[in-house]
């Protein structure tokens, strides 16, 4: 993605002589999504128990949408980072709003625990 590398570069020139983001900037961009997912997953049970599974999911999709809009609009690293954080937060909320629960739910129905674990 030469266009992106040039646009988001803060002056660093990579080994091939092209403008690019630094390795540490790249690491931050990659991992901030996981950081968002971490907090999203932790918050998810509180949201889904408080406002309900349906409303919780609907709210979570808009957290994700906010993130997508932010990093679609971004033309520099800071906003891109913010976008990926919120996208991660949304993903954590959405996917964890269930990852733990099938086990809890189905274990009470006997052997379906194994079938439902994903």
């Amino acid at each position, binding site marked *: *993605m030469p266009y992106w590398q040039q646009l988001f570069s803060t002056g660093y020139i990579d080994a091939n002589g092209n403008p690019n983001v630094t390795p540490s900037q790249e690491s931050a961009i990659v991992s901030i999504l996981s950081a968002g997912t971490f907090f999203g997953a932790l918050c998810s049970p509180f949201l889904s128990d408080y406002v309900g599974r349906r409303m919780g999911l609907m709210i979570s999709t808009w957290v994700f949408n906010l993130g997508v809009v932010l990093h679609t609009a971004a033309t520099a690293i800071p906003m*891109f980072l913010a976008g990926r954080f919120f996208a991660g937060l949304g993903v954590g909320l959405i996917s964890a709003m269930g990852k733990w629960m099938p086990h809890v739910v189905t274990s009470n129905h006997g052997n379906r625990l194994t079938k439902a674990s994903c």
Partner: protein
Amino acid sequence: MATASPKHLADGLGPVPLYQSETAPKWIRGFIVSAYQWAITIGLLLAALVNNATANRDDSGSYRIPIAVQLAWSLILFFGMVFLPETPRFLIKKDNADKAALALSRLRRLPVDHEAIAAELAEVRATHEFEMTLGKGSYMDCLRPPILKRQLTGMGLQALQQLTG
């Protein structure tokens, strides 16, 4: 795609196991919940295709297109949830038996007073009451024995899975 950017197109695809596990009929519940993982894999494939198609564009579409495509899945999920009912299990948890029966009757396409609805609601209620007898759990419980050992086992497995690439 040497760069860090939009690798996660697939992330928008989450049909969400909690909602599924609380709404799907028992006989197909396992399959439906497992399909979640399958959907993620399909999403990764689509992501790779879109990334590949846009990576060499010489405009902002090179990163904006693959990122923005994720909105589609998220909006599908949102508008789908607008039309779907709350889970009966949650409504039972909130002591709202009437709404729970209504939600279940919509999910099963049966009249509210059908015996199958009553039977399943009774089962949901029994499970809920059983869970209440177990007392409240908290995140701190995960870090205290006897749960600590399984917590670390689970974390270890997940970490090793990631480390194998």
